[in-house]
């Protein structure tokens, strides 16, 4: 589904990604962990070109998205993204947040989008917040709305960039629970997170990024119980 | 809300009024100058005590006053003023300002006298006193060299009606162009372009913004001379007027000193000075 070949990314003179190769299959739930500065967020943000790769190719559903001739806006419609800071649109109500993209991009009519929004709000457990504004919601509620907003586009893959890092501890659970349900429904997911419990229970594969490369990867059981790379051992000893 | 607004406005008007009164009142007090001379002390004594006499002028009116290359104010008026200062045995200090602020500044005591090629007019006489005149002058019409404008005063007034006339703001020429009857003008509905200086007026006549300039005789000759061949001054005199120095009201002793100097200079000596400064 997503095929990454020899991905490099520089910020100025600083090389953040030093040749990443990775293939993500349909239905996989890939969790990426690593210390801060390891390049894991940059890697995720390259997948939908929020960061422009310096070199290398990313193929999504058979299309090379790094080719400037490709319409990246069309491709992004199929890749939902959830941010650490939620990034809900504060000037729009919850319902309008969800409806905006499908309607403005001509994918749904106003009525279809309305129906979809209410369904999704039900789905994320916030049916009574349709007319609320983001500021009136807790962090956990905002993040669940942000997930609903991404789902409104019926994406083929969901990208999560540290979705629980900005949340108060008591709200982390509700967001992880929702993500877990999504995973169980078969959504393809790529998640950058520090939640090891989530990685262990939900991931089909865990990647460890270190110094701009994928240093180790495995299915979760082996990954956590039998780490090979010395840096991963060190990392796990600190976080577990 | 509306009431508050009105109240605030009223308060502002009052403050303004107070300020206005403050200044007008001082001016009405006989002989009181900015340095708070007590009544009884003469203006001349106050000047001698200060050690300097302050002349107000607008240094953009050659040959009577202009800025020399070194930045000092030179001209016929400056030379005569120097003679006044010498007679009093004090330093001469020249303050350069907009022409249209001079009378008000003099009234407010910002200077001891004004020497600015200033014409004696009834309106100015209500505000300040004038010395004896030292130059007779006229308002003249300056046009571009290729203009065929000519005729006597009435013909020119008619021809200039409705035209773009450049003037120096606040001068007799300004009022004349505006059709002010006290100047004897019969110009109607001219578009008066008010500039800060005679030289600016000349610039905008030369580049075509204005059709003519109405200005005093000597400055007219000076700007024509300075615009080598591009401008000319017409022969017709629109007015007859007298230049004099102005002092604050009720300062007879200072006026007497100035009149002595003026008497000395009037005629040949002034003509010499004009010739001298025309070339500069």
């Amino acid at each position, binding site marked *: 589904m997503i095929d990454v070949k020899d991905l490099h990314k520089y910020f100025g003179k600083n090389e953040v990604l030093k040749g990443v190769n990775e293939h993500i299959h349909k239905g996989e739930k890939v969790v990426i962990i690593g210390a801060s500065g390891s390049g894991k967020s940059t890697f995720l943000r390259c997948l939908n070109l929020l960061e422009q790769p310096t070199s290398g190719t990313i193929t999504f559903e058979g299309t090379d998205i790094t080719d400037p001739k490709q319409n990246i806006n069309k491709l992004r419609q199929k890749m*939902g*993204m959830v941010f650490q800071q939620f990034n809900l*649109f504060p000037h729009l109500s919850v319902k309008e947040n969800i409806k905006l*993209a499908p309607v403005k991009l001509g994918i749904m009519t106003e009525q279809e989008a309305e129906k979809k929004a209410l369904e999704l709000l039900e789905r994320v457990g916030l049916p009574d917040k349709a007319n609320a504004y983001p500021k009136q919601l807790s962090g956990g509620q905002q993040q669940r709305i942000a997930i609903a907003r991404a789902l409104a586009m019926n994406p083929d893959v969901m990208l999560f960039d540290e979705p629980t890092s900005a949340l108060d501890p008591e709200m982390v659970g509700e967001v992880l629970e929702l993500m877990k349900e999504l995973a169980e429904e078969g959504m393809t997911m790529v998640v950058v997170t520090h939640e090891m419990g989530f990685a262990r229970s939900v991931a089909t594969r865990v990647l460890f990024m270190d110094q701009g490369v994928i240093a180790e990867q495995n299915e979760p059981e082996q990954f956590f119980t039998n780490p090979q790379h010395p840096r991963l051992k060190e990392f796990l000893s600190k976080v577990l | 809300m509306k009431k508050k607004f009105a109240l605030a406005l009223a308060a502002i*008007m009052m403050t303004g009024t107070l300020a*206005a*009164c403050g200044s007008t009142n001082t001016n009405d007090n006989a002989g009181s100058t900015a340095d708070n001379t007590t009544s009884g002390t003469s203006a001349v004594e106050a000047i001698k005590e200060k050690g300097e006499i302050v002349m107000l002028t607008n240094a953009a009116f050659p040959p009577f006053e202009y800025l020399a290359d070194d930045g000092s104010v030179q001209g016929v008026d400056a030379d005569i003023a120097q003679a006044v200062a010498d007679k009093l045995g004090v330093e001469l200090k020249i303050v350069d300002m907009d022409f249209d602020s001079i009378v008000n500044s003099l009234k407010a005591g910002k200077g001891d006298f004004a020497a600015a090629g200033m014409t004696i007019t009834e309106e100015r006489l*209500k505000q300040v006193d004038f010395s004896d005149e030292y130059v007779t002058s006229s308002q003249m019409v300056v046009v571009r060299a290729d203009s065929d404008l000519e005729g006597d005063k009435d013909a020119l007034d008619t021809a200039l009606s409705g035209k773009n006339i450049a003037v120096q703001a*606040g001068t007799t020429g300004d009022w004349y162009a505006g059709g002010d009857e006290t100047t004897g003008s019969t110009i109607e509905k001219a578009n008066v372009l008010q500039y800060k200086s005679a030289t600016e007026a000349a610039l905008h006549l030369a580049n075509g913004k204005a059709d003519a300039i109405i200005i005093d005789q000597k400055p007219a000759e000076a700007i024509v001379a300075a615009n080598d061949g591009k401008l000319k001054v017409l022969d017709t005199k629109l007015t007859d007027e007298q230049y004099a120095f102005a002092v604050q009201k009720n300062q007879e002793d200072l006026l007497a000193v100035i009149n002595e100097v003026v008497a000395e200079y009037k005629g040949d000596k002034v003509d010499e000075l004009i010739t001298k400064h025309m070339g500069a």
Partner: protein
Amino acid sequence: MNEWFAKVVSDFSGAFIEGDRWKLYFQGLGKTLQIAAGAVVLGIIIGIVIAIIKVSANQHSNSGKCPVFLKILEKICDIYLTVIRGTPVMVQLLIIYAGIFVTMTDGTIAAIVGFGINSGAYVAEIIRAGIQSIDKGQTEAGRSLGLTSGQTMRLIILPQAIRNILPALFNEFITLLKETSVAGYVAVQDILKMATNIQNKVYNIAPLMITAVFYLVLVIIMTQVQKQIERRLAQSDRR
């Protein structure tokens, strides 16, 4: 005290009522408003164009590729902003009047253009700062949903930025209105010029006081409008 009061009354009636002089103030006021309104319109147009150029150049260079023509345009805008903000408006006005509209007699056009060009620089900075004050995450969220950069700007960034822009823009217009008082230097008979003309007849400061009140009333009205707008924006903020 009575004498004093009588003097005030006579000064003000001499400066305002006698000879129907009040008509001159209103004539001058009309000129002032004409210049200010023209300059505001021109300033907004220039400001928006420059802000668009600056913001899109900024976005492009963030994403690593900025077309050459955009870089050139941005450079031109930078020079414009530096020159206009680095020189006094009166100097700009005199140059435009004597150097650009060389043969045009009516200084009004020169004044509108001069103040418009001047204001445009400040408006551009206000709009640019307003847009760039919106968190980068908002743009990313919009783009990640598949919206184009234009849609993101129009639907997400501008509606939020306008809250920061409008009040600052109003301040700029108030400043502009007051700055037009130097228009007299290019032979325009605005309200201040009219007042100095009247002053040369009455020789007291009453005409200036009257002019000050005219400006003050205008500014107070504009400030009230500004407050109304800010109140509305604040209301929608509390939702």
